[in-house]
């Protein structure tokens, strides 16, 4: 009579192991994992919100202006007599009337204003001999109260483009 082994599976070959024991042995340990789906949902909602509500100042630049000390009034005791005054009067919502003080001619637009300012300038280094105003002479923009800011900055831009260097803003004229 043969003696039974201590371990009942000791004598068994792989083929002899019962089916339920074999399946347990082959099974890998259960993987732990987070369920990302709900988190991704929330993240996407947040992302879409911020993308839509972001407000970038795209395409903005600056033009540098010098303000008179002590206020925006153009009057100054040290200013020379030769002043070039650009008068802006509101016409309607979209347009304004542009004139040079002392001249009755109405200037059609700000491109024409730039040309007029260039014609009035005496600057031999840039081939401008016809005018009486030097680039350093003060240019004062005199808008009335209802002139839109767009037109005021446009007049300033035209003066910069015509290479004037001393440009300032007057108090709003009351019409």
């Amino acid at each position, binding site marked *: 009579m043969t003696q039974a082994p201590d371990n009942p599976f000791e004598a068994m070959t792989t083929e002899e192991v019962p089916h339920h024991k074999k399946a347990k042995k082959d099974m890998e340990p259960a993987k732990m994992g987070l369920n990302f789906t709900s988190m991704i949902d929330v993240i996407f909602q947040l992302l879409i919100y*911020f*993308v839509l509500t972001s407000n970038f100042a795209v395409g903005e630049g600056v*033009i540098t202006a010098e303000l008179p000390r002590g206020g925006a009034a153009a009057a100054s005791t040290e200013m020379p007599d030769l002043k070039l005054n650009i008068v802006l009067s509101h016409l309607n919502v979209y347009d304004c009337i542009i004139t040079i003080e002392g001249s009755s001619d109405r200037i059609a637009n700000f491109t024409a204003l730039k040309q007029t300012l260039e014609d009035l300038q005496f600057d031999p280094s840039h081939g401008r001999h016809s005018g009486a105003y030097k680039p350093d002479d003060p240019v004062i923009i005199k808008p009335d109260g*209802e002139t839109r800011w767009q037109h005021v900055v446009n007049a300033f*831009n035209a003066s910069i483009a015509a290479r004037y260097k001393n440009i300032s803003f007057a108090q709003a004229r009351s019409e």
Partner: protein
Amino acid sequence: MSKIHKRGSKTPEMNMTPMIDVTFQLIIFFMLVNNIVSSENVQLIPPDLSNPKTVLFEDENRIVVNVAPKIDEDFKSRQQGNPLNYPGEATGVVLFGKEYQYDQLDQITAILKDSAERSPKDKDGKPTVSVLLRADAALYYTEVQPVMAAIANAGITTVHLVALMPEDKR
């Protein structure tokens, strides 16, 4: 029998980790940028000039003074139309995310004066802080001029007027 068949068919899974990484980066970017931009910029349309001489401005050491128009319920449609077709009155002046009324302009002067005194000075002793005046194109000159006066009263003689860049550089 192959090992794969022994284990049975496995459902294919996407590796979500890089996507989540990128998405988080984007969210953090937009959250930060949104806060910075909204504290500086108010929703308005700056002047669109003919043949503009505007230049880009560096972000460092600058203060943006916004002159805000009346709140627009439909800002997008205004951007598509003529921005001047809009009321010329301002609601107030926005500085560092806080809105001031026109009778509080002395507070703006005080804040700007304080900022100018605390900012580093150049070799001529002038403060290096830059003030950007960002006003809506449709505003009446009477709405912007007191703000310029308030800036000048703070001892700041150079102001940078904000306008749109030339079309090819936007």
